């Protein structure tokens, strides 16, 4: 198993290199000269050349790539072309809103989706099952921003229960934080709820036919214990996988949700950076999310090896 761990960890290095190469090429080969953006419209050719030299843009492409890669490995993601702040500092400032949003959304997902999936599996083929499954197909196909605006319309404008937009830090008190995070978190979790409810149901259905479930029922355990303690625990592995592979889904959800609800998080940062062509910020964000994706999938693969003794590599 140890050898497998090492092999699996080493295998993610080429993946990250490909990501780095791709991001590098994408940004360097695209039209639009970063030096020209910094210098502004009034710059003379010499000024441009100086800025280019300062940024290392006059070097051949492959040299630029390795210089850049070396900086990345040392944790230097560069400074924003627009605000002149180190990129990591900018990302650090935006972590809290996005982090809170993601955590609350995850919480909603687990609280809502898993019981729904368990109930649907328990009522397999009956009305409640069909209702949950239809709702999940719909929840899946309605775009995140449409759900966001529907929630705003209903809870903020018609009923007036919650503020329309914005974000307050948890340090400013629980009530302002909670009132502003509920709608965006619900919006973000909608797809996840649909997905994980389905996954839980499918996975539970496979498990519910097993002999040990019959045994558990036969020895007179209450149905709730059978479902949650015996069945759900054994159905957990595929659910875990979806949470991991759904990470990319979460990214796109965060970008859109933060735009709809005016939350100053990482999603807004990338949209703003892209619109302003702020190369270092775009690079850093794409690399970091890709890195996170690789790490999450790595952990999931490794957790299989640990939790499921049937898997041998």
């Amino acid at each position, binding site marked *: 198993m140890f050898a497998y761990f090492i092999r699996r960890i080493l295998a993610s290095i080429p993946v990250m290199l490909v990501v780095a190469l791709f991001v590098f090429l994408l940004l360097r080969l695209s039209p639009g000269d970063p030096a020209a953006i910094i210098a502004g419209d009034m710059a003379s050719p010499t000024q441009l050349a100086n800025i280019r030299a300062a940024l290392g843009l006059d070097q051949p492409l492959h040299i630029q790539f390795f210089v850049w890669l070396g900086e990345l490995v040392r944790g230097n993601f560069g400074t924003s072309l627009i605000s002149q702040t180190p990129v990591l500092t900018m990302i650090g400032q935006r972590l809290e809103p996005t982090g809170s949003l993601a955590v609350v959304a995850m919480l909603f997902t687990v609280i809502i989706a898993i019981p729904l999936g368990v109930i649907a599996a328990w009522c397999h083929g009956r009305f409640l099952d069909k209702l949950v499954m239809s709702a999940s197909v719909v929840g899946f196909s309605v775009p995140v921003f449409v759900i966001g605006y529907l929630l705003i319309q209903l809870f903020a404008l018609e009923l007036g229960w919650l503020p329309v937009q914005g974000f307050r830090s948890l340090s400013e008190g629980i009530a302002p934080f909670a009132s502003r995070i509920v709608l965006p978190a619900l919006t973000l979790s909608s797809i996840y709820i649909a997905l994980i409810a389905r996954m839980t149901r499918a996975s539970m259905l496979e498990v519910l036919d097993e002999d040990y479930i019959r045994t558990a029922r036969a020895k007179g355990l209450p149905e709730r214990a059978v479902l949650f303690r015996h069945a759900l625990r054994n159905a957990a592995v595929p659910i875990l996988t979806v949470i991991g592979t759904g990470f*990319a889904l979460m990214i796109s959800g965060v970008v859109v949700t933060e735009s709809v609800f005016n939350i100053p998080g990482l999603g807004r940062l990338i949209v703003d950076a892209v619109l302003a062509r702020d190369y270092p910020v775009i690079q850093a964000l*794409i690399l970091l999310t890709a890195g996170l994706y690789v790490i999450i999938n790595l952990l999931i693969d490794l957790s299989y090896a640990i939790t499921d003794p049937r898997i041998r590599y």
Partner: protein
Amino acid sequence: MHASHSHLTLAPEGRGVSRLLSRLSQTRPRGVTLAAGVVLTLIISVALFAPWLANHDPLALSPADRLKPMGSEFWLGTDPYGRDLYSRIVYGARVSLTVGLGVAVTSVAIGLPLGLLAGYFRTLDAVLMRIMDGLMAIPGILLAIAIVSLTSASLWTVMIAIMVPEIPQVVRLVRSRVLATREEAFVEAAILMGTSTPRLLWRHLMPSTLAPLIVQGTYICASAILTEAILSFLGAGIGTETPSWGNIMSEGRVYFQLKPSLIFWAGLLLSACILSINLLGDSARDALDPKMKRRMS
């Protein structure tokens, strides 16, 4: 990176929403498929006959008519620039369907040969799949936003931007089918009879990939329509004057509190369109892959 656990029960390999779903669906009543077909046919007709259905020029600015309510002159009212919302939404169907169909066809057309080659040639496979793993690690929406905004905001760049993250999914699917099929006796027989490699790939290995590709293509179509709308909505899509559903909603955002219909009609059509394509994809999968249906229902 997923190949190592792809044999594990339900582990979905896809990144996109619909592809995850594709692994977990259940039997659907026939009526739902029929309804989805009707809705999609309607939307396609709207797109085809847009010039006859629209009663205003979708691009004509008319500051005097800004934000008019619904009425006989402007059926769904007007947008912040005085353009007729109904006519814009009708033309928006064209953009969405073009993007959906275009991306589905091109990503299959590019992914299919790559997947066939990767499945057949071991050395190429190692290199190609590492590249695909790298591409898949980048969240599709970020990749698409970056591609669009770093090039130009035309229909073509938007389609390419949406297509690039979809290709690895197709390559993976085709490759896994080829790996399974090449173990079959008829393939071995063909090799022994001295069939040339291109013929072997095309005549013997390719047909087994068609059924799952059709299903995958449907899901790509739905997800491309969604991604286009998201890109436009974020301001990183097709040029803002183009009447796409995403653009209509993006422009309506500022006036949303004043006039929610600026967002809702386009959102409703967009959702209906994606929902019906996904449902048709599910039915296609049930029809083409009965084994999957049995396992999941």
